[in-house]
């Protein structure tokens, strides 16, 4: 892609993809409309960490567009700024400079509390290390997201997600009693239970063997297709990146063209 620099944040976006919608549809991927409102848009995104007295730039001007319903893989070497990008898009940390629009909300102008509220309702995270709460069962880990969201337990949504991810018989198990693949499926269930607009996955297959990696990727793909779930996935794994609609390469804090 082909991320053209944005001229005006908040305007309607012309998405230019190297391929036509027919080509993508033929591949079974989400075709993009020609003129749509992107669900994620960044312009000149920079993030600088202060380490002692030294400024360490993690992102050096990232311009990115992601359409609703897209499954995007973000690839790049370690330390290139992928995770920082994910954290900013998830509202976990603010950018140093630049604009971030997520579902029409400008993160750079929002307070920490507003970003937290936004994240609660619109963002789901999947982590490499699963990050399940060890003292809770799988069921409670999933229900926790609904509890935090504050809309109460939705049994229909819960059942649909649990069945889609095939973890019904694991619901009463605590994380230590689950395999890595099962833990990651529970983590995915937790990420999508509140119907977030965007799922941000940080190396979701990084701790899994090939078989489990494939299963997790298939589930992410299925969620993307079944629910038009927008997914942004960081990965080192080329096979994992192939599952996505498109791939974004990051190096030295920049997005580089294919």
């Amino acid at each position, binding site marked *: 892609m082909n991320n053209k620099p944005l001229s005006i944040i908040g305007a309607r976006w012309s998405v230019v993809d190297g391929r036509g919608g027919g080509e993508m549809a033929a591949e079974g991927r989400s075709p993009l409309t020609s003129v749509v409102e992107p669900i994620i848009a960044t312009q000149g995104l920079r993030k600088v960490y202060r380490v002692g007295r030294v400024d360490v730039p993690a992102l050096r001007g990232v311009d990115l567009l992601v359409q609703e319903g897209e499954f995007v893989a973000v690839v790049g070497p370690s330390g290139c700024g992928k995770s920082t990008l994910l*954290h900013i898009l*998830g509202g*976990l*940390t603010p950018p140093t400079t630049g604009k971030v629009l997520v579902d029409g909300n400008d993160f750079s102008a929002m307070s920490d*509390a507003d970003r*937290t*509220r*936004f*994240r*609660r*309702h619109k*963002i789901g*995270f999947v*982590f490499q290390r699963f*990050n*399940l*709460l*060890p003292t809770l069962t799988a069921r409670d880990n999933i229900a*926790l*997201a609904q509890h*935090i*969201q504050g809309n109460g337990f939705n049994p229909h949504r819960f059942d649909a997600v649990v069945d889609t991810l095939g973890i019904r018989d694991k619901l009463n198990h605590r994380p230590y009693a689950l395999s890595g693949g099962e833990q990651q499926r529970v983590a995915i269930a*937790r990420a999508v239970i509140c119907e977030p607009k965007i799922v941000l996955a940080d190396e979701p297959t990084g701790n899994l063997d090939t078989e489990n990696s494939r299963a997790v990727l298939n589930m992410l793909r299925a969620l993307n297709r079944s629910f038009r779930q927008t997914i942004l996935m960081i990965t080192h794994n080329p096979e994992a990146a192939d599952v996505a609609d498109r791939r974004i390469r990051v190096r030295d804090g920049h997005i580089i063209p294919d």
Partner: protein
Amino acid sequence: MLAIAIEVGMVMLVVGMTHGLVDDAARRVEGVGADVMVQPPGSSFMFGLTSAPMPVKLADRLAEIPRVQAVTPVFFQTNLSGGLNVIYGVDLPSFDRVTGGFAYHAGLPFAAPYDVLVDDLYARANHVKVGQTLNLLNHDFRVCGIVEHGKGSRIFIPLETIQELVGSRDKATIFFVKCSDPGYVDDVVAAIHQMLPKHNVLSIREYMSLMTSNNLPALDAFVTAMISVAVAIGFLVIFLSMYTTITERTREIGILKSLGASKRYIMGIILREAGLLCALGIVGGYAGTLIAKRVILKSFPTLSVELIPEWWLWAALLALAGTLMGASYPAFQAARLDPVDALAYE
């Protein structure tokens, strides 16, 4: 939880033992059966602090007051050997007229100057038997009898003996006056005031109302200090344990933040957890207090532990307040954690 249980138990027992000590002393004086007591000018209602400057012959004048049925002089002497006790030096015939007489568990009344009567609780606590020798006021006494507790002191020796031992011949510390009818107490008090205007004359009813820990400044300060120490211990333990917990659970807090948990939500769960631990600690403290009371009374029968109903609530409230204060800062720190740093915490 254990710290809260100890805090609650400590508060309950300190207050209970203090109240028990004071109430037991007051009840025993009430148990003498007198209606009025006459003490020398400037004396304290704390008996052990009073010297003995009143002539015993004053009893005869008091007995002449209308509606006075009986008068008995008593000499108080604090004894430190074998524990802190106030020994009553009594004139047994007149003491029996006021009290209605001792109920003897074993033995007989005084038969010799160096005979001593002890009450059953003292005998049980000190494994004392009739015929045994007790060292009191640096002299050996023979235990001539064991009497039912509740009539003033736990140790009684003849009035003349105690006067001789302390060099106050024909002197008494107090006169217990029994009225012919309790309805005449005010009249008798007024008459005694008229006869002895500088003396300290109290009805037993007034004395009982004065005998509370609140009226004993040093005791009140002691209780307050002990409660403060208990609350401070609870606060510090909760503070340190919650702070440690927050550090150990940094990553979990990061997970909650990634799920969109607000600062208030995170503070809420930490304070709720502390509150739950506190509640369990309070229940444990209550149970520990009841067990400790039984152990104390079994081991030290002369002690009295009086668990005051309102202090069940106060101990719980103090523990809860200490817990919430101790947990607030760690909870606040947890809520302020940077989610990215928290998620990266190993």
